[in-house]
């Protein structure tokens, strides 16, 4: 029987989300239709919007349902950049970081390479936190020329939690819009959009127990990122397309339950993670807990096992029935060095030797023990399989 400790990649479908989806599928009606059946599905959609808004501390009008995290990040980054640069051609600096998810890094780089954006990166402290002094100096340097800042709330590899209010505070001096990819944060750490000072925030459904293919971009009422898709003007005219009320309903159910359980799960998973980290360090004293000392999400344990290669570790653990992950795999399925660790200053070898263990709602002490047993068996083999 395999043990799934890769909940940050995707997590188990919550029964409430499955039920909400199944119930919604029995409806017939386009939420934009004026007749009674259209009104019924519209009501489902709007109830879902209420729930998601409440779960993340936003106003209901700020929730723009979409297909998930990658779309949300692209929309926020390109949409805000285009909006800003249209109004002032000189306002074309984007501040981001080298540890963002590819769904942020790639649109940012694309704007740099194709749309004349000037991309600059804030530095990190050794523990993976954004260096606020570095951010402050970038903002002071570029001032009104900064089109947007995009910095993630929780890092999907290391679990490092950013100080979002401090970041938006720095940006506020020049009224710079700040976007945050909160995909790895939502449902795992407390989130309050309105208190955060953010202009936009990305959420994904399948990371909180909804199906894959639904998410939301939270957009402050004051902002109007240019749309990526034009059409019928749905979702505040920011995201055209027939509204997917069944998936929205499912996402809302999952989000509501995740946030309701948040305190309890943070405590439970945090304790499990502490046990896991302590046991790993005992079993493999040379291991490094990345981002140690930083404020980290409770469900995420991230290690470097010096002298090994991630793909050998993952292969061997998979053979033992343990599903974990490393840095992000490319399209061909090849594990590269973790760009997050490289961005934090780890060496190429270290960044190619990481393993990420992420816990979720179904995780138990038994899962953790199964991982540890497997680790003790495979680590010496992985060491041996790595060319010196």
């Amino acid at each position, binding site marked *: 029987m395999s043990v799934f400790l890769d909940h940050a990649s995707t997590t188990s479908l919550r029964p409430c989300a499955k039920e909400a989806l199944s119930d919604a599928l029995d409806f017939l009606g386009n939420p934009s239709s004026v007749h009674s059946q259209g009104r019924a599905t519209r009501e489902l959609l709007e109830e879902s919007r209420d729930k998601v808004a409440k779960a993340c501390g936003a106003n209901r009008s700020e929730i723009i349902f979409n297909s998930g995290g990658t779309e949300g990040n692209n929309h926020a980054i390109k949409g805000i950049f285009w909006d800003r640069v249209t109004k002032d051609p000189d306002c074309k600096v984007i501040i981001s970081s080298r540890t963002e998810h590819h769904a942020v890094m790639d649109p940012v780089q694309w704007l740099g390479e194709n749309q004349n954006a000037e991309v600059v990166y804030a530095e990190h402290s050794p523990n993976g936190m954004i260096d606020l002094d570095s951010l402050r100096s970038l903002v002071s340097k570029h001032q009104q020329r900064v089109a947007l800042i995009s910095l993630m709330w929780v890092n999907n590899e290391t679990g490092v939690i950013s100080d979002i209010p401090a970041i938006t505070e720095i940006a506020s001096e020049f009224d710079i819009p700040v976007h945050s990819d909160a995909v790895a944060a939502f449902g795992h750490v407390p989130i309050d959009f309105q208190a955060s000072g953010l202009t936009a925030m990305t959420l994904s459904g399948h990371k909180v127990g909804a199906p894959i293919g639904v998410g939301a971009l939270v957009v402050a009422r004051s902002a109007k990122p240019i749309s990526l898709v034009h059409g019928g003007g749905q979702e505040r005219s920011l995201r055209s397309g027939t509204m997917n009320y069944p998936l929205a309903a499912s996402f809302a159910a999952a989000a509501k339950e995740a946030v309701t359980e948040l305190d309890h799960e943070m405590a439970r998973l945090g304790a499990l993670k502490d046990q896991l980290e302590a046991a790993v360090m005992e079993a493999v004293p040379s291991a490094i807990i990345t981002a140690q000392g930083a404020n980290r999400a409770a469900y995420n344990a991230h290690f470097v096992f010096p002298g090994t290669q991630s793909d050998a570790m993952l*292969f061997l653990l998979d*053979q033992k029935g343990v599903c974990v992950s490393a840095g992000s795999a490319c399209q061909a*399925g090849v594990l590269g060095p973790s760009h997050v660790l490289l961005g934090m200053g780890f060496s190429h070898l270290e960044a190619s030797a990481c393993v990420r263990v992420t816990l979720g709602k179904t995780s138990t002490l038994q899962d953790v023990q199964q991982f540890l047993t497997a680790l003790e068996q495979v680590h010496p083999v992985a060491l041996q399989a790595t060319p010196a």
Partner: protein
Amino acid sequence: MRVLAAMSGGVDSAVAAARAVEQGHDVIGVHLALSRMPGTLRTGSRGCCTIEDSMDAQRAANKLGIPFYVWDFSERFKLDVVDDFVAEYQAGRTPNPCMRCNERIKFAALLERGLSLGFEAICTGHYASILEDGEGNLELHRSLEMAKDQSYVLGVLNANQLAHSMFPLGATASKDLIRQEAAARGLSVANKPDSYDICFIPEGDTRQWLKEFVPTDSGKIVDSQGNQLGEHDGHVGFTIGQRKGLKIGTPAADGKPRYVLEIRPKTKEIVVGPEEALEISDLFGARYTWCGKAPENPEEAFDCDVQVRAHGDTVSAVAAIVDGQMHVQLNEPLYGVPAGQTAVIYVGTRVLGQMTIDEARSKVSTGA
């Protein structure tokens, strides 16, 4: 036996893996990522190395119910195969990258990694057979189907590598049978076209591809007396025996076509001449290996057949190790054999060994 099936995404390696599973081995499929920047879709007649090929391999593995992984050998491949390929051309030789890949990647880096991860053998879709000589020694033999025989590119394997290799397709009479078997097994690659181009050269144009790595460096095209006949924009990419693309304006005195006879990297000269000057009588190489058990007295001349290209060009010869290098004296001539190519030595169907050709000597003087 724990077996690592190298799966390129083609039909041969998929059927080879299927047969290994059927033989009761504990098989795991591995696709080797050999390029840092793989193309998305397959183009031309390349058979691996794109994401589409990797996905084809994965589909086949899933169909066989075996675990599947993509392992990154792009760094080793770049160093051991691509860089070597460029350097050989720069030195005026014509390399065989598939041979290098077998020698350094598939049956070296992959095998080493497989062994250290607890596997006992590498299984590939090559058309060749491993047989025992009756005394427990393993021998590599030509495939039953001569038209597809790939024993040539495996000539670099040593006894230890043979002991850890499996070629389940070796005794199959035709490629059609493999395709039929693939279809019967429900493998989606059953009708995938064969590949024959160099995998890392997308458009199949080696000379054009080399231009990206080697600065253009023009020089003279001369005859064997040193008379200038034309100019070229870089010696790299020319190959011995080449006739096309020389762009020599004036015809030869006798009106016959001219061929590349020699590449002189130091003076940047390309020497051309008549076809008969391509006639080769002797091959020499200091870099030789034995495939399986070495002959007891290699210094003593022995009869053999020698093959200098992946397909065809096999002639009878007499070989011996003389002063630390292999000397192959051809009983009938070969034409246009470039240095850098591999000569594989056969005794009957058995692959006895191979050498990288340092010198192909002609009886006709090129004036070198």
